[in-house]
C-alpha cells in the first residue's frame, strides 16, 4: 500500500483506497450484541486496520504512526462508523487518550504503550469524574501521596467508561497540600488496572449497556515514571483533551448519527416531512459547524470556549433525532426489542456527559457573550 505520509496522496484518494480495501476485507461484526462483543469487535478492527496501516495514519511515527494530517483519522472513522463496523463510543476514546499520551507521557512510555492501544491489544479508560465531582471536576479528591519513587493512590472514580475491559487508566488525582490552589493540585497518572488495590464495578444504567464503571483505589502503588506530565499538570491535561473531544470525537459522533438518520428513513417510510426535516436540519447544522471546527483545528487554531456551541448543537441534534425516532415508530421502542430502544435511552445523557448543557451555556454566557459573573 502506498503511504500518504510519503507521497502526495490527497484525502480523496486516501478515502477511495480505504473504501476499496474495506470492500475486499470483511470486518462485519459477529452477531454478539453484548458490550463485551462490541469491545472485542473494536479490538479486531484496530488490529486488522493497524496491520494494514489504516489505523496508523494521522499519528506521529514516535508512537507507531505513519504521519499525515489528523483529517486522515477522521476519514477512517467516517468509513468505519458509516458502515456500522464499530460502536462510536469505544471508537472515539482513541481521540482523547492517544493525544494525551503523546503530549504528557514520557516519550519512551508513549512509544511503548500507544502502539498496543492503536493495534487493539489493549483497552484503556479515563478516570476523571468522582461521586462528589461531576460538573465541578476541579474539586476531585482521589488522593495521590508520594512514597519514595512511587505514589500511593486512594479514592473512587465513577462514570469510567469501559474500565471493566481496560488494562490501563488515565487517572486524575489530588496532590499537594491543603493550601495548594485546587486547580494546581491535580496530577495525572497512567495506571495499570491489574495493580493490587484496584477494583472495578460496572454501573447498571437505564439503557441496559453497562459501559460505565465505578473504580476504587485502595492503597494502589504507582511508579513515579507513570506520572503524565509533572505534579500539578492534571488540570491542564484535562483541558487539553477538550479540543480533541470537540473536534474529531464530535465529527465521528455526527457521522454515526447520519447513519441512524438513514436507518430511520428506512424504518419509518410513512414519516411526516416536517418531523424528518426538523431532525435532518438539526443534524445538518451541527455537521456544518463541526466541519468548520475541524478545518480550524487542522489549520493549527487553538480551540476553546467557542466549541461549547458545537457541544450544545450536537446534544440538541442527537436528542431531537431520537425523539423523532420515538414519535415516528409509535410503540416500537416501548414494546419491541430493537436497537432504537437502547439508543433512545442513551441519548438522554447527551446533555449531561462531557459537560452538561447548563455548564456549556454558562461558558457561552461568560466567555463568548462577556456577560460578566453570575
Amino acid at each position, binding site marked *: 500500500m502506498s503511504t500518504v505520509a510519503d507521497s502526495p496522496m490527497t*484525502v480523496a484518494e486516501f478515502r477511495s483506497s480505504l473504501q476499496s480495501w474495506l470492500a475486499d476485507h470483511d470486518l462485519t461484526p459477529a452477531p454478539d450484541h453484548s458490550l463485551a462483543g462490541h469491545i472485542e469487535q473494536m479490538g479486531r478492527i484496530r488490529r486488522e486496520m493497524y496491520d494494514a496501516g489504516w489505523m496508523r495514519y494521522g499519528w506521529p511515527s514516535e508512537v507507531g504512526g505513519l504521519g499525515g494530517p489528523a*483529517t486522515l483519522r*477522521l*476519514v477512517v472513522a467516517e468509513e468505519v462508523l458509516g458502515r456500522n463496523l464499530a460502536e462510536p463510543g469505544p471508537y472515539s476514546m482513541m481521540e482523547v487518550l492517544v493525544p494525551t499520551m503523546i503530549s504528557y507521557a514520557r516519550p519512551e512510555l508513549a512509544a511503548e504503550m500507544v502502539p498496543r492501544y492503536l493495534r487493539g491489544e489493549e483497552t484503556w479508560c479515563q478516570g476523571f469524574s468522582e461521586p462528589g465531582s461531576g460538573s465541578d471536576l476541579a474539586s476531585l479528591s482521589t488522593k495521590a501521596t508520594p512514597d519514595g519513587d512511587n505514589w500511593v493512590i486512594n479514592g473512587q472514580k465513577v462514570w469510567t467508561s469501559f474500565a471493566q475491559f481496560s488494562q490501563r487508566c488515565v487517572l486524575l488525582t489530588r496532590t499537594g497540600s491543603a493550601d495548594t490552589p485546587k486547580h494546581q493540585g491535580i496530577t495525572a497518572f497512567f495506571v495499570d488496572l491489574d495493580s493490587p488495590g484496584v477494583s472495578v464495578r460496572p454501573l447498571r444504567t437505564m439503557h441496559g449497556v453497562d459501559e460505565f464503571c465505578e473504580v476504587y483505589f485502595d492503597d494502589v502503588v504507582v511508579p513515579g515514571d507513570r506520572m503524565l506530565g509533572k505534579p500539578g499538570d492534571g488540570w491542564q491535561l484535562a483541558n487539553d483533551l477538550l479540543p480533541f473531544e470537540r473536534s474529531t470525537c464530535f*465529527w465521528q459522533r455526527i457521522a454515526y448519527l*447520519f447513519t441512524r*438518520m*438513514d436507518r430511520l*428513513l*428506512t424504518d419509518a*417510510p410513512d*414519516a*411526516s*416531512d*416536517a*418531523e*424528518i*426535516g*426538523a431532525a*435532518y*436540519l438539526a*443534524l*445538518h*447544522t*451541527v*455537521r*456544518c*459547524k463541526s*466541519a*468548520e471546527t*475541524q*478545518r480550524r483545528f487542522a489549520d493549527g487554531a487553538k480551540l476553546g470556549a467557542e466549541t461549547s*456551541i458545537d457541544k*450544545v*448543537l450536537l446534544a440538541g441534534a442527537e436528542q431531537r433525532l431520537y425523539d423523532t425516532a420515538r414519535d415516528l415508530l409509535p410503540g416500537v421502542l416501548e414494546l419491541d426489542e430493537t436497537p432504537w430502544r437502547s439508543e433512545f435511552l442513551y441519548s438522554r445523557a447527551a446533555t449531561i456527559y462531557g459537560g452538561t448543557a*447548563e455548564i*456549556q*451555556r*454558562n461558558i*457561552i*454566557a*461568560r466567555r*463568548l*457573550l462577556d*456577560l*460578566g*459573573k*453570575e
Partner: protein
Amino acid sequence: MDDGELGMLADTLHKTMSAAAAAETPNVEEALAELGWLEMLDEIPYESTALVFRLLGETGTHAGVLNDVVLHAAGRPGGGTVPLPFTGGRWVLWERTDHHGTAVDGELPIRTTGAGEQVPLAEGRRALGWWLAGSARAMLVLARRHALDRVQFGRPIASFQAVRHRLAETLVAIEGAESTLRAASDDLGCLLAKAAAGQAALTAAKHCQQVMGGIGFTAEHDLHRHVKRVMVLDGLLGSARELTGEAGAAVRALGRAPRLANL
C-alpha cells in the same frame, strides 16, 4: 478581489449603512447603488451578497436588493423588481421606492401582488439567510446591552442564569445558522441555510424580547423593528417551517440523509 479589498469594502458598507440607520433614513437603496452594488453582484456574487445582506440585518437598514439577487440568478438585468413568492402561497412585490408598505414591518415598501413566474430561489434564500442572521445578531446586541445595564434586585439582570441561558441559546442558534450559510452551495444547502437562519432569527426574537422585558415592547425602543423585519424575511421565499418540511420531503424521496458539509 482579495481579502484586503473585501475588508475595505466591508468597512465602507458598514459605515454607510450605520450612518443611514443613525440618521433614521434606513432605506439604503440609493447609497448601495452609489457604492456599485450591481457591479459587485456581477463580479463577486457570493461575497457581496453575504456582506450586504448581513449588514442590512446588523444595522437595521433595508433595500430591495433581493430583487437583484433573484434577477441575477435568473440571468436577467438587475435594478428592477420581480414578483417574489411568500409563505402561504402568497406573492409580494418589493418596490424600489421610499414608500411605506402594508406588511407588518411597515418600513419595507412591500405589497402583495398576483402570482408571478417561477424564479430561481437558491441564491435569494441564501441572501435572506444572511439578512436574518444579521438581524438576529442585532437583536442579541440590544438584549445583551440591556441585560448588562438593567439593574433589579440590586444587580444587573445579566447575572441571573435564566437570562444568561436565553442569550446563550440565541448565540448557539445564530452561529449554527451562519455555518449552514457558509456551507450552502446547492439548492438543498441554500434551502437548509434559509430554514436554519429563519429559525435562528425567530429564536433570537423570542429570547431577546423576553430578556428586554417591558422596554422591548415599546415602539420607542428599536427591538420591535427587528422583530417585525424577521417575520417578513422569514416568510419570503419560504418560511423556516415550510422549508424544513421541504427538506424532509427531499430527504425522504432520496431515502438517505445527504452529507452536504464535508472535510
